[in-house]
């Protein structure tokens, strides 16, 4: 069987605000294969986190899935009753968030939060559950685990809390881990520890991962494939190494050029992408990136480009992709 583990198909999510509806996700499609790690990259408001919440059935009340399918292990999660979702969530579909403090229960010990989960999913109870909790904490590199298991979240440092979150997420042996900005709140030396831990866990369990981040450096070392989101859609996807080395969408290329890098010579000025992302409350005629695009094609004014394959496995939604080498991009050039 090679059906993908997770298949998101033409997903639409809308927020209903007083000022009108916000189309946060507008026809999003991607898949995560078994054992694979997919990076979902975008800036604030691109819809990357909203799409993850939709998978988990955790959208805020003001938001709803208005169209599309989310097939996980062959089953459509959209519209699934909460009781059935709950049986999947935390068991075969686990998640870690940016801020472990807001997702850990402050009045329960770390150990209790893990054993609770093991019991809820009928994996272990009592003594066995507690032993398993200690074992999990040890596995994620928490020193002195048998003591830590009895501590409360506030007694742990930020890095330690994120490790505890990873332990909790892994407790029921999930087949997919959704990590939403898992290291954004952490210091860089602690980030390196947590990324190493995630890589180690994936290597030993064959778990798939959906890594959501704004940091192109983080995806570089932690994912097999990469999807770049802009204004609620994927504008480019492909093998991580390929997309980073040969970006075809002007947005991806612009993002890569605007990040100052430690491994590159220091230029006089950073490249910038002029303007700001579009307002998703309004209709977007044509390509949503057109107002910021260095070389918009004439069609971009009329029609939003669909994602199409340029090279094997490398797709781009652009009327005039850069088609490396990058130097000779004529304004308005045809694809």
């Amino acid at each position: 069987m090679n059906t993908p583990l997770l298949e998101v198909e033409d997903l639409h999510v809308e927020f209903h605000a007083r000022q009108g509806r916000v189309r946060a996700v507008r026809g999003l499609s991607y898949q995560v294969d078994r054992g694979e790690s997919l990076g979902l990259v975008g800036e604030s408001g691109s819809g990357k986190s909203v799409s993850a919440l939709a998978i988990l059935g955790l959208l805020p009340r003001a938001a709803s899935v208005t169209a599309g399918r989310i097939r996980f292990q062959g089953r459509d999660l959209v519209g699934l009753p909460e009781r059935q979702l709950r049986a999947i969530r935390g068991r075969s579909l686990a998640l870690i968030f940016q801020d472990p403090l807001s997702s850990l229960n402050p009045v329960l010990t770390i150990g209790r939060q893990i054993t609770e989960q093991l019991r809820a999913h009928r994996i272990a109870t009592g003594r066995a559950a507690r032993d398993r909790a200690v074992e999990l904490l040890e596995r994620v590199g928490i020193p002195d685990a048998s003591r830590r298991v009895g501590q409360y979240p506030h007694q742990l440092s930020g890095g330690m809390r994120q490790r505890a979150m990873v332990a909790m997420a892994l407790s029921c042996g999930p087949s997919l881990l959704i990590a939403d900005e898992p290291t954004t709140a952490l210091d860089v030396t602690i980030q390196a520890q947590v990324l190493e831990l995630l890589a180690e866990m994936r290597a030993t369990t064959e778990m798939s991962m959906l890594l959501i981040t704004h940091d192109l450096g983080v995806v570089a070392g932690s994912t097999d494939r990469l999807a770049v989101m802009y204004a609620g859609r994927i504008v480019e996807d492909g093998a991580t190494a390929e997309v980073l080395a040969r970006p075809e969408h002007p947005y991806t290329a612009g993002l890569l050029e605007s990040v100052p890098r430690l491994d590159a010579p220091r230029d006089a000025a950073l490249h910038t992408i002029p303007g700001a992302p579009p307002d998703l409350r309004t209709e977007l005629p044509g390509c949503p990136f057109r107002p910021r695009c260095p070389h918009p094609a004439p069609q971009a004014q009329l029609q939003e480009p669909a994602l199409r394959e340029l090279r094997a496995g490398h797709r781009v939604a652009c009327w005039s992709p850069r088609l490396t080498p990058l130097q000779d991009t004529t304004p308005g050039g045809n694809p």
Partner: protein
Amino acid sequence: MTAQHTDEAAVLDVRDLEVRFPVRRGLLGRPSSWVYAVNDVSLELYRGETLGLVGESGSGKSTVGRAIVRVNQPSKGTIRLGGQDLLALHGPRLRPYRRRVQMVFQDPYASLDPRQSVGDALTEPLRVHGLAAGRRSARVSELLELVGLDPAFAARYPHQFSGGQRQRIGIARALAVEPDVIVCDEPVSALDVSIQAQVVNLLAGLQRQLGIAYLFIAHDLAVVRHLAHRVAVMYLGSIVETGPSDAVYGDPRHPYTAALLSAVPVPDAVVEKTRRRTILRGDIPSPENPPTGCLFHTRCPLRELLGSPEVCSTQRPRLQALTPGHHRTAHHVACHFADEAGSLTADQPR
């Protein structure tokens, strides 16, 4: 200090700064113990120059900045601005000096009054310091143009702006009083990368145009490398390495700096998947109970490599010039084994 960095004296000269906070209060509300957030920090800043102050949470970098603008009261040390010791001044006598050092914060939204229009927010510092009398609205337009905003925006309120625009307003407000020094505390870390680059370029352009000196406090090492002429790396309240950016980034001599640099991921899958990374173990110790000897010895990969020499845990290394006799702005390191640091950084991207 006799050697000259340039022909002029430093605009800002901080010596032996110490900032402590009470942690527990005993009888009669007297503090029974202190936490030393900043220890013996010395730095100087010249006209038109950027000094990057980097470190992780709890390193004390923001406290240094806040002490310089006198939000936190230092317990020791001197802060000289154009030769005058700020810590000796109080009340009205401090005011003219306050004008000369301004601050830009991470979250511009929190530092702007939501009920005040942008024009009013920019007029306020002019009024307080008696500047541009009679031509204040013209000055407001000038300031908005300087930071790349439409002067018509003066009538708008903070919520009508995006994060990047609000940070431009925060910068305009700092510029309003024509300061010599701006303390920038994580000014771009809340912004998306495409917007971050715009603000970084704006700061660099303003410096070239106006000759302002920046103390640029940030945790993002790549952003600091891009903007700073010199850099100081802090760990647990002390500067462990400082010097010209090219020297510190290109040839880090403190094992903490080396580990910090090796932990920064770069957007290149080949580099990321092949390079050797120095992963520090454990967390930053609590400043309430700092390690003896070298502050970094509990996590130091170099100490481990050298077979845990005793000196690391017994003696606090002093910040010393790599080449003796050099000026304070030269490459300085606080490590007993600064000459061996190369063994940790053998194959990292430079």
